[in-house]
Every structure is written in C-alpha cells, then in structure tokens.
C-alpha cells in the first residue's frame, strides 16, 4: 500500500470520528465503561485468589487472638481450657514477638515495610489444630466465650467465603461483561454506520472504480479501532489510578498488615495494559466489521 493510500485511509478515519463526535464520544465511553468494570472484577478476583494463596497453609488451623496485657496465669488458663475441649488435637502458644518474626520472614523483601512500626501490633495467640474439621464450629463457639480472648479466626471459613465470593464475582461478572461488550459493539457499529451513511456516494464511487475491499473498508476499520483504543486508554488510566489509590488508602486507614494481601499495583500494570488494549481494539474492530458487513457487501 502506497503512502498516499495510507494517508487517505487515516484521514477518512479521523474525519469520520470527528464528523460524528457525539457518537464517537459515546462509543469511547462505552468501551471505557466495559473495561473499567472488567478491571474491577478482575482485580477483586485476583486479590481474592492472592489472599487464598497466602492463607492456604493456615487452612486447618484455628487462630485464637488474645487480648493485650493479660496476666500469665490467665493465658495459661485459657490454654488448659482449650486443651480440654473435645476434638482438639494440639494447641500451640505463639507470642506476639514470634509472630512478628515469622511475618518478617514471610514478607521477605517487603519486610522493611514493617520497620516503621513502633510497637508490635500483633497479638499473642493460641493456634489450635483439630482432630477433624467437623469439630470446628463447636470449638470456635466455646473458645470465643473465654475471657481474655479477643478474636477467633478460622481461615477455612474465611477462605471458603472468599472462594465462593470470587466464584460468584466471576460468574456474575462474566454475564455483565458479555452484555456490556455486546452493547458497546452495538454502539460502535452504529457510530460507524453513520460514517458509512455520510460517505455513501464516495464509497459507491470507489467501488465502481474498482477500489479493493480493504481500501474501502480501511477507514471504517481504523475508525472503530481508534475508538476502541482511546476507550481502552481511558479505562487503563481510571483503573490503575483507582487501584493505586485504593492500595494507598488500605495502607493508611487500615494497616500495613492488610496491604500485604493486596496485589501490588506495579505488578498488574503490564497485564492490565495488554488485556485492555486487546479487548478495546477487539470491540472496535468487531463493531466496524458488523456495520461494514451489512453496508459494504458487494
């Protein structure tokens, strides 16, 4: 393809976008909306999987977090009480200092995040192993009622909840995204139909003169592609910014401890960019194809 032809195709494509600005904006907006929603769902699912992965080892353990500043006796009393329960296989005591050490080890490179913490925020705890997971409910209810017990955490429950939430998000998300995808393909194809209609004479003429199909379709394909591309750029900016801020927010408002469970923003940038651009361009091209197939079949 010569330089002149390429120039013509590009010029027509951008003229088309400009001529129907309102529809172009709507198209870009719809692509961006689909991708933003897709991004949110992806990130939530991704984070849930991450949490699941991190906490998997603690799967069949019950964590009993104790209140601050308990007397030694109270602590050992609680230990005895737990040991005497039916269904308990073993009980281990873990001091807050040991817990922090362990955490530093787990975090590896990211451990310097913890240096900023003045006093150890972690609690003293008992870690219960069960004879069988069937006893879990019973043990938890009893242990929760002991004086001096701040919180009982049973990761199996949490994980199961997370996994089912994640599954639900995935299914519901897929349905929503497919609907939104179809809507934005529809909006783009309508935008392009307008351009096709406004250039009808020219297109007919080109076909009579013997323009190749590619040459006739080129501007419309590019138009759809550009709309999709702009939409995906906007979505990338929105999603990455929002995620960045969410991560900072969680760090600030909650605790550094929580943020270790969050997938780091820098890790996802490349994937988000690739996924969004691919889908954006896909929606755009498909939208053009749909409208061109109808209008420009010879």
């Amino acid at each position: 393809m010569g330089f002149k032809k390429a120039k013509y195709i590009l010029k027509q494509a951008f003229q088309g976008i400009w001529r129907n600005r309102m529809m172009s904006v709507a198209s870009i907006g719809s692509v961006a909306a689909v991708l933003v929603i897709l991004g949110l769902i992806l990130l939530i699912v991704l984070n849930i999987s991450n949490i699941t992965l991190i906490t998997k080892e603690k799967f069949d353990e019950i964590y009993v977090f104790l209140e601050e500043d308990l007397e030694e006796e109270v602590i050992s009393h609680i230990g005895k009480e737990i040991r005497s329960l039916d269904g308990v296989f073993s009980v281990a005591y873990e001091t807050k200092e040991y817990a922090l050490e362990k955490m530093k080890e787990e975090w590896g490179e990211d451990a310097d995040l913890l240096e900023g913490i003045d006093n150890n925020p972690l609690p003293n705890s008992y870690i219960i192993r069960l004879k069988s997971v069937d006893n879990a409910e019973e043990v938890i209810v009893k242990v929760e009622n002991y004086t001096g017990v701040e919180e009982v955490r049973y990761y199996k429950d949490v994980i199961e909840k997370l996994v089912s939430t994640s599954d639900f998000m995935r299914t519901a998300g897929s349905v929503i995204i497919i609907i939104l995808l179809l809507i934005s393909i529809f909006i783009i194809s309508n935008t392009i139909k307008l351009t096709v209609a406004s250039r009808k004479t020219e297109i007919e003429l080109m076909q009579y003169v013997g323009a190749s199909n590619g040459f006739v379709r080129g501007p419309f394909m590019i138009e759809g592609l550009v709309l999709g591309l702009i939409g995906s750029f906007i979505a990338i900016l929105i999603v990455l910014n929002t995620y960045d801020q969410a991560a900072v927010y969680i760090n600030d408002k909650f605790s550094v401890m929580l943020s270790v469970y969050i997938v780091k923003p820098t890790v996802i940038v490349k994937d988000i960019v690739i996924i969004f651009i691919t889908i954006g361009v896909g929606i755009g091209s498909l939208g053009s194809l749909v409208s061109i197939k109808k209008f420009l079949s010879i």
Partner: protein
Amino acid sequence: MLEFMEVSKFYKKQQVAVKNISMKIKKGEFVFLVGKSGAGKTTLIKLLLKEINPTSGKIYYDGNDITKLKNRRVPELRRRIGVVFQDFRLLPKMTVYENIAFAMEIVGSSAKNIRREVPTVLSMVGLSSKANNYPDELAGGEKQRVAIARSVINKPQIIIADEPTGNLDPETSHEIMKIFTEINKRGTTLIMATHDRAIVDQMKKRVIELKKGSIIRDSEGGYYNGL
C-alpha cells in the same frame, strides 16, 4: 468479448427486471440500450458490473463467467470497466483534478503516472482550464466531462454509460457524444443506456431495444424507434 447467455433477473415477489437476455458485444463496438422506463437497461448494466447477480443465466467477460466471480475479485472486474452516470457522481470536496486523480490512487497508480495521465485526459475532454475548480463551480456538461475523464483514466476496455445525457441540453449532449465517439474510436467498447432519441438516430450505431425485460430488437446502424 462480452456475452449474456439466457440471463434473467427477478427481484422479490417474482418481479421481472430482465428475462432471458442473450446478446454478444464485440470488442470496440458502440451499443445503445434503449427502451421505456423500467425496461431493464439499468439492470443489465448492474449485472455487468456485478452489482447484482442474475437469478439465472451466465455472463461471460473475456471468457470468464462473472456470475461465478468471487466477491474479492470484483474490484479487478470493475477496473476493466469505466462507468458514467446520469448524475455525474463527482466528489464535491475534491477539485476536478483530484476527482480524476482519486480514481488512479484507488487502483494504486504511482504519483508520477498520475501527474502525467490526469492532464492528458483533462485536455482530451477539453477541461484543462478547470482543473482546479470544484464540481459546484461547473456546468452540467462540464461535470459530465469530468466524469468521463474519470471513467477512462484507468484505461478500461469497456465504458458503460447509464443515461449520461439525461440531465443535459441537446447541444451539450452532442458535445458529450463527440467525446464518447472519440473514446470509442481509440478502441474502447462503449455501452450506453439512453432515452435520447436524437442522439441514437444521429449516431447510427447498434441499437438493442428492451421491453419489459426482454430484447425485442437488436439492429446494426439502427434508430431509436426501429424502422
């Protein structure tokens, strides 16, 4: 080089556009298609350009049945046929020069060729002085001459004109016919659908008359009404 074999075209609801058309057109011929409105002239032209496909029959162009031509090969067919319409179909945002050059760009001619060919063709149709005018600034006859220049620019073997003088006064029509005659003399086959009795009678070329989609007359050196 062009042959219709028992070609019929029905639109929906059994509406007959052309019926059982068989005809041969040789290279270099000048042929008028005449007949009342709705007789099927435009339909024949569309069939030849493969804008529509026949319901039945075969259309041979240089030995190939174009009814079997794949869609993506249609541009090649169209490049060998120049078309002129009653309503000129010039692109309003392009100058005369650009309108013609555009037809060359579309088929991928080099800039050098374009610079050489466009002025030559413009001078053939007598419009060298209007090269930089826009279609809006031209009279009907001039617009049609631009359209003719555009139709010959890629050196097609056939020129098809569908009522090219339909919007023009007799004198201007005469001018246009002179250009067509000149093009035909250089070896290009010319097929022209028309209602213009004066022109047909004066040119004394082959006349094919259609009525309700069928050929009712095919006479060499004929007149508009037959004789």
